[in-house]
């Protein structure tokens, strides 16, 4: 009996000490196609933030727990619910996958737990799926499209064909990009919806080429993105069509190599080599993980610190009071300058349109991007009046 309770205490250390701790959770794809985008690196970044904050807040120890959602919405939402019930979870960092994050946002509203959505791109999280507890922290489909799609269309890429991941993320990204390119005088000629983690992209790419469009809009991410770009190169499609990465991470570029990725346009919320502060963070992270952080891993650090600062300023972990505090503060750290959290939950901050360097332009390891355009938060995320978040109407 004593053994059983000792085992239970080991398995669930939070249960016995609830109330004396501030619990931060992280639910993400730890092993699948998005695992390098945040995954173990996100855990490390969040732990760095907790350590930098001093390990305690309001005299309570800060505890960090994490779980793998395996890209399945039901696993993500049930784990979140379990933590909220059993572990008195105070804040959740939501990792990759829009489908999972939409399911988890519903739990955030039900359980009243602040939810920092970081890896998910779908802008519906702050539109029809918004909640009073959701903060969309790093980027969304609107800001990604406002970056890459507008720059390419303005540079003459008027007709687009989309290769779209067949779930909420891919279709939302395609819709956002279509809206932007139509506004800039371009048009979408067609699209093909590709099942997640397809083993071969050449058939889909041949259809894209057959459309005669100028631009190949890659509305996918992770290994789906890298494999489709590889096949586009192999089949000579990049000679006649300009590839546009609607969501690419530095981990993707690193694994593809500059020879394949050079010239590609992409939009990012953060890059390690922007200024001395980002470089300092990159250096610290690199010492631990042996690679530069993605924008999401940097956002994990920033979001964790922002939350803890809000708890400290509000002098409570009460979710409503913390959310109120979060909406009041300006975020000034290595991730964002003058960032702020809007009523619908969008964290408005500068975004960057980048072009991947050629092997000759790259002077040192991880020297991959050159800044094409810096967008203000307002330009990137659009006006609040565009948001369809139902919470805005009540006021």
């Amino acid at each position, binding site marked *: 009996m004593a053994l059983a309770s000792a085992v239970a205490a080991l398995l669930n250390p939070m249960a016995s000490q609830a109330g004396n701790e501030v619990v931060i959770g992280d639910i993400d794809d730890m092993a*699948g196609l998005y695992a390098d985008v945040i995954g173990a690196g996100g855990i490390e970044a969040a732990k760095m933030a907790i350590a930098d904050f001093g390990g305690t807040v309001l005299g309570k120890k800060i505890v960090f727990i994490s779980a793998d959602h395996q890209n399945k919405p039901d696993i993500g939402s049930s784990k979140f619910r379990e933590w909220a019930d059993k572990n008195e979870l105070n804040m959740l960092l939501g990792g990759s996958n829009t489908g999972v994050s939409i399911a988890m946002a519903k739990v955030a509203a039900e359980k009243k737990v602040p939810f920092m959505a970081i890896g998910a791109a779908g802008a519906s999280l702050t539109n029809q799926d918004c909640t009073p507890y959701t903060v969309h922290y790093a980027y969304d489909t609107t800001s990604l499209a406002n970056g890459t799609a507008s720059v390419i269309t303005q540079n003459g890429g008027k007709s687009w064909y989309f290769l779209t991941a067949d779930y909420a993320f891919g279709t939302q990204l395609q819709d956002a990009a279509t809206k932007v390119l139509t506004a800039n005088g371009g048009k979408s000629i067609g699209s093909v919806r590709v099942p997640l983690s397809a083993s071969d992209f*050449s058939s889909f790419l041949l259809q894209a080429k057959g459309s005669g469009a100028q631009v190949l809009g890659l509305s996918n991410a992770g290994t789906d993105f890298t494999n489709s770009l590889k096949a586009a190169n192999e089949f000579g499609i990049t000679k006649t069509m300009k590839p546009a990465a609607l969501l690419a991470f530095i981990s993707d570029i690193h694994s593809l*190599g500059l020879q394949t990725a050079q010239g590609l346009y992409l939009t990012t919320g953060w890059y390690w080599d922007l200024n001395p502060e980002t470089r300092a963070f990159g250096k610290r992270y690199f010492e631990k993980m042996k690679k530069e952080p993605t924008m999401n891993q940097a956002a994990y650090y920033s979001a964790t610190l922002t939350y803890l600062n809000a708890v400290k300023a509000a002098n409570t972990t009460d979710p409503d009071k913390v959310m109120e505090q979060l909406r009041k503060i300006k975020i000034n750290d290595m991730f964002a300058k003058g960032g702020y959290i809007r009523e619908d939950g969008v964290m408005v901050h500068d975004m960057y349109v980048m072009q991947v360097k050629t092997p000759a332009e790259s002077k040192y390891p991880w020297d991959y991007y050159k800044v094409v355009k810096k967008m203000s938060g307002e330009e990137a995320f659009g006006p609040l009046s565009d948001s369809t978040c139902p919470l805005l109407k009540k006021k």
Partner: protein
Amino acid sequence: MVSRCVSPFFLRQHAMSDIFGIPTQVILGQLLLGLLNGSFYAMLSLGLAVIFGLLGVVNFAHGAFYMLGAYAAWFLWGRFGVNYWVALLLAPLVVGILGVGLERTFLKHLYKIDPLYGLLLTFGLSLIAEGVLRELFGSSGQSYPVPDLLKGALDVGFMILPIYRVWVIVASLSVCFLTWYLIECTRLGANLRAATENPKLVQAFGINVPRMVMLTYGAGVALAAFAGVLSAPIIQVSPLMGSSLVIVVFAVVVIGGMGSILGAILSGLSLGVIEGFTKVLYPEASNIVVFVIMAVVLCWRPSGFFGKD
């Protein structure tokens, strides 16, 4: 699409015609791509069929061995500068030896009990292999270059055909034919088949059956690794590359008939083509079409097209 080059004669005649509303060029392109993917399916399902047919083991680790073959090639190239052609021989050898070790330590204890145990064991092992490689090299994968000799592409009129892909078809079909010939038409193959029917009798004739079984497993695994090396320059070498493929390959084997070598090859190729056309007609269904066919075949012919009843 064709305007940039002189199209072959037979295409010029039909260039304007459509079949079911799809331009002929698209059909030809997809047919070729379907055969390309089909040759991968054929080679992978061939190894599975050999292992199941001769050992009765449902080798769920097949996808992991495919992935290990690709990683072996990448590692040999990155660390020791071993070129593609050497890796094409060396990687299957290394992975094959690993397979033999696995057979000796784990699998041989399971032959006498329900095949389900072998399935669970190999499934568990493949999860471990994926986890270890993800821990070592990350999930976004590694790039492996196309060998210099096979760089570039041919303009065949209806599409740009990378030379490397032509090599993949040639190499995999040759390997498929060789394996089929070895098992169906040689003395060694006859011994193997006899050993699966009646191991005790074959043993009595002075043939070392356990050693033969061990080497057969090693050879089946080496086939998977060979396919892995072939695919390394095409897709990112990632820990998940096998698991997304192995389920489809299992369906291919079931459709062809468990244990049938010819069935595995033919159904691999034809399902590659069917999947290719699904990618044009109804792309959202392209990842399930093979399973729909499997379900229909199982209802109609439970032992598959070439399986023994």
